[in-house]
């Protein structure tokens, strides 16, 4: 007979809340990329506003985890899953911040300059979005194998980051008047690279939840 039904519902509830937060973050990234692509300021400000909702979800998930630890004394897989939920919520929150950074580029970088870099930015963001999506799939049933495979794609983002960095520096050298906007692009480039690192962290936490061992997926 199943026992501690309320407790099991609590853990399932936390799990589902992480997935909901992940979907929201993925949506934000998608909207931010579209906003940059179409120079849509309204869409961009929507992304900035929804970041507050993502931040709030992180706090709510932390609160639920804290209550579960305090009242249910979870052990073994349950305990790992709750710890991992706290960690993943934190990484998702940071990815949400990066969606906001991407959306801000609509205001901070001129369409002309953006057009030059956009193919690489788009590739990085698309890779990031697909990694977020697939890491959430791996989280559904804590699929460690899938998580490892998702994390391995971070190398592609890193390579694009190097390319784009060289390109922006080149542009700034040629046209010093673009240094202000170029710096914004350098930051954006860095944030998109960090996005991949956060997804890699999420993948590491999934492996940890499943196996109890910390893997290093981003050496």
């Amino acid at each position: 007979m199943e026992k501690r039904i309320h407790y099991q519902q609590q853990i399932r509830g936390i799990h589902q809340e992480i997935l909901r937060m992940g979907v929201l973050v993925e949506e934000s990234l998608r909207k931010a990329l579209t906003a940059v692509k179409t120079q849509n300021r309204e869409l961009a400000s929507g992304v900035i506003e929804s970041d507050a909702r993502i931040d709030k979800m992180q706090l709510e998930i932390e609160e639920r985890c804290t209550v579960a630890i305090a009242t249910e004394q979870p052990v073994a897989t349950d305990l790992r899953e709750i710890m991992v939920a706290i960690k993943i919520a934190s990484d998702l929150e940071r990815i949400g911040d990066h969606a906001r950074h991407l959306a801000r580029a609509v205001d901070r970088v001129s369409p002309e300059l953006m057009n030059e870099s956009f193919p690489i930015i788009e590739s990085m963001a698309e890779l990031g979005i697909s990694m977020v999506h697939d890491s959430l799939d791996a989280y559904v049933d804590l699929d460690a194998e899938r998580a490892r495979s998702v994390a391995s794609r971070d190398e592609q983002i890193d390579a694009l980051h190097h390319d784009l960095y060289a390109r922006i520096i080149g542009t700034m050298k040629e046209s010093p008047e673009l240094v202000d906007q170029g710096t914004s692009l350098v930051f954006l480039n860095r944030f998109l690279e960090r996005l991949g690192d956060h997804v890699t962290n999420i993948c590491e936490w999934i492996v940890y939840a499943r196996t109890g061992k910390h893997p290093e997926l981003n050496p």
Partner: protein
Amino acid sequence: MDTKLAMHTKNLNFFYGDFQALFDVSLDFGANEVTALIGPSGCGKSTLLRCLNRMNDLIPETRSEGEIYFRDQPIHGQEVDPVEVRRQVGMVFQKPNPFPKTIYENIAWGARINGYRGDMDELVETSLKKCALWDEVKEKLKQNALGLSGGQQQRLCIARTIAVEPDVILMDEPTSALDPISTAKIEDLITELRKRYTIIIVTHNMQQAGRVSEKTAFFLNGVIIEAGLTSDIFFNPKEERTEAYISGRFG
């Protein structure tokens, strides 16, 4: 082997008449370690505890097969006196059971019949101090022990046990009849006592097992399902049945 063994069992089987309560139990108890025995009621953990100081000898129609060693001596050897085994392997029970005598006599009596010839006042004081009870009872050593609170009685029983200088202390759910404050005191005491003694504790309180023990063995229907470091058992057990039990999903 990492630590010196205080006790170990080898392929131990135990029977109450036709009913087999333990199956092939082989378990090591490291010296100066706390080992928790956990499992649902009737799984054999208390039976094992009573085997370890031959308390089961007192129950008619029981028999055991296999070996139990105290250090490296079998405790069922022809020349072994079960009373001496019980002195070296003391026991504390679920309900505090002080003798209906004075606090002083509760400590002194066991030592006296064991032939203790030292300073009895000093032994009483040291034993009570080791159990963090001295300050509470030093003014009333001549009062009846049954006047103490449940938690104090249990600490007195532990003091009585250690007064005869055992090597191993068996504890059969020593805090299940106590309130949380008294429980915390006993747990602190266990942590303190492990420096001098080997402790084997049966507990139904999973958090207690997690808090006080270095090793844990999980029993089901008389069989060891999993035994190892407490941190492994509670954080990353290998067996699904262990996980289901410690997380309260069955048992």
